[in-house]
Structures are given as C-alpha cells and as structure tokens.
C-alpha cells in the first residue's frame, strides 16, 4: 500500500480567503491546490520549521481595531528607529518628516503627496506620488509604507525618482533687477527721484536715485554717485516694497551698490555725513522708529 500523499503549505492569499498547498507524493505529486479557509496550525508550523516565511493570515485592513493599533505601534517603533532625532520629533508632531538628500529634500508623511524641493536650479518644488506595490490592498499599517519609501529613497534613490509620478511643479521666479530707466537722462532721473520723494514714495524714489548713482559711477563720477547711492539705500530700507517684487533682494542690490562705492571712497567721516544728510531728508517727512532702525542698519552695512 503506498504512503498517503502529504500537503506542503505554500502561502495564504492576502485577502484571507484561503491558502495554497503543494501535493507531495501520490499520482498528483507536485500539483498545487487552493483550499478555502484559514490554514491549519500544523501546516503552518511545518512551513515555518522548513525555513519558510508565512505571512499573517489576515490583511491589516481586516484586523480588529485593537489589532490594528498594535500593528501600527509595531510599525511605528521600526520607523522611529530609522529616523534621526529631528525627524522623530517632526513625525510625532505632524505625522511626517523631511528626508535630506544630496540633491534636495523630500517630505514623507502624506500619501500621494510627497513634496520634493531640489537644491539649486529653476525648479522650486514638485509634488510626487510614489507608493509601495500593493499599498492599496490594505496589507500593512501606514507606518510601514513610510519605512518602505524611506529605505528605498536612501538606498536606491534613482529607483525612487525613476518611478515617481509628478503631480505638480513650481518654478523659482526669474531673478529681479533694479530698474535702469534707460530712456531717461541724468537730469530726468534726478527729477524723477525728487518727485517720488516729495510724494512720500521712498521705494520708487530710492530705485530712481539708485539708477542715477549707477549711471554716474559708470561715467566715472564716483563721488557724486556715492552722494546718490547712500540716500537711495536709506530710502529703500525705510520703504515698504510693493507686494509683487522681491523686496529683500532689491534692497540688497541697492545697499550693495552704496557699500561698494563707499569702500572705494574710503572716507568714513564723509560717508557718515552722507548718511546724516539722507537721514535728515527722510526725517523731514517722517520721524519714526523705522527710519532710525534703517539708519542703524545702513551704517553697519556700509562699514562692513
């Protein structure tokens, strides 16, 4: 009499509906069989003892609420162990964290919405979508998804970005320049600046006087250029730039022009006089903390 065929457990289906076995021995040796229902313990033990990974019989989504909490806690322990302190704090506070790479930084934590900010270039930000295969089958706790993406990102970034779907792209604005007023002569520029100042528009007046200073410096009249550049710098420091411009960048440009001319002049008493004159011109119309703070800042930057 021949020995009874045996069954070798292969795997359970992810949805828990049944499991696959391989028939060992008998006329159907090697055939595969699908058996409905959960696998019996003795088959599972045999599989594990034989050096086989047997996944849990139920998906994460099919667990009880208590079981899901425990699974998520287990997954989070692993995820947190892989993060540095700053990332851990961020994850605990927000559920997400930034991953720093050589080429930029990527934020993990919101499914289908990974924020990628590359360093340099004209690309400011992209929203990417990258997921582990089978993520929508409810197989693992949410924290495992981040562990999956985190390790892939660090170990094989080229793989990560090769499959990423780009959902949105933002580009950096083109660099702004101070207006040159190329069509205006020196006198017209000076008049324009005075008109703006009289109207209380310190921003426009400062830019016009800055353009005048650059024109004078280019023509070799550096001392006169300095007399315009210093008041222009104080004006833009005092003023509120329009919302549509990069005020900080333009301020730096105007102040840098004044600073370079001042360094060439190399006469601190004279520069202090210029700052006084500029200060007094503004104070005639406005005397407030903003002017005093701007004067302090300008003096410091001209001396640096």
């Amino acid at each position, binding site marked *: 009499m021949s020995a009874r065929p045996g069954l070798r457990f292969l795997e359970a289906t992810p949805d828990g509906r049944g499991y696959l076995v391989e028939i060992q021995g008998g006329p159907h040796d090697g055939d595969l069989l699908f058996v409905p229902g959960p696998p019996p313990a003795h088959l599972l033990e045999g599989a594990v003892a*034989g*050096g*086989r*990974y047997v*996944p*849990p019989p*139920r*998906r*994460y989504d*099919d*667990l009880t609420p208590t079981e899901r909490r*425990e*699974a*998520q*806690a*287990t*997954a989070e*322990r*692993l995820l947190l*162990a*892989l*993060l*540095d302190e700053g990332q851990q704090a961020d994850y605990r506070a927000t559920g997400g964290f930034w*991953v720093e790479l050589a080429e930029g930084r990527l934020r993990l934590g919101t*499914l*289908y919405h990974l924020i990628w900010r590359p360093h340099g270039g004209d690309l400011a930000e992209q929203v990417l*979508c*990258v*997921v*582990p*295969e*089978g*993520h929508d089958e409810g*197989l*693992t*706790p949410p*924290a*495992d998804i981040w*562990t*999956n*993406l*985190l*390790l*892939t*990102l*660090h*170990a*094989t970034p080229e*793989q*990560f970005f090769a*499959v*990423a*779907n780009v959902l949105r792209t933002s580009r950096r604005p083109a660099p702004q320049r101070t207006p040159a007023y190329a069509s205006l002569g020196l006198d017209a520029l000076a008049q324009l600046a005075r008109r703006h100042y009289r109207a209380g528009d310190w921003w426009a007046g400062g830019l016009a006087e800055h353009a005048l200073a650059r024109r004078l410096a280019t023509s070799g009249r550096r001392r006169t250029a300095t007399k315009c550049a210093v008041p222009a710098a104080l004006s833009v420091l005092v003023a509120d730039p329009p919302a549509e411009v990069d005020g900080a960048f333009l301020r730096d440009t105007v102040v840098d022009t004044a600073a370079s001319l001042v360094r060439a002049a190399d006469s601190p008493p004279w520069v202090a006089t210029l700052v006084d004159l500029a200060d007094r011109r503004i104070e005639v119309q406005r005397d407030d903390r903003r002017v005093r703070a701007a004067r302090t800042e300008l003096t410091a930057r001209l001396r640096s």
Partner: protein
Amino acid sequence: MRILDSSGDTVVTWDRHDADSIEHARRVFCQLHAERRLAFAVPTGGTARDTEPVRAFDPDLDGEIVWVRPVQGG
C-alpha cells in the same frame, strides 16, 4: 530580518553559531527574494541614512535587514 506585513513586521532571527537557524534564515531570504521583495540593510546603531541594498544573505551581517516591496508611481 524584519519583513513588513500586516502585523507591523515579522522578525526572523538566526544564531551565527547555529547552522540550522542560519539555513532557515537563508531559505527565507531566498523565498522573499524570489517574491520580488527588496532587502535593505541598516547597520547596528545606524539610521535610514546608512541603508544599503542587500543582494545576498550574509549570516555575519552587522545590522538588520528590512524587507520591503518595490515602489511604483501612484
């Protein structure tokens, strides 16, 4: 080795001085590799920043292997 699954993760360990446990772990490694999962090694005391891909089972590895799934665009 940690295998990400519905429980959070399932741990498979081995003793470097126990040939049976090493063989057990090696079979699991081969099984998961055949299932197209990916193995990443994190050195002891390291973070994800130190992760490297693993292509072959090394019982003397200093650290932990984490098995994940391939990624795809969403």
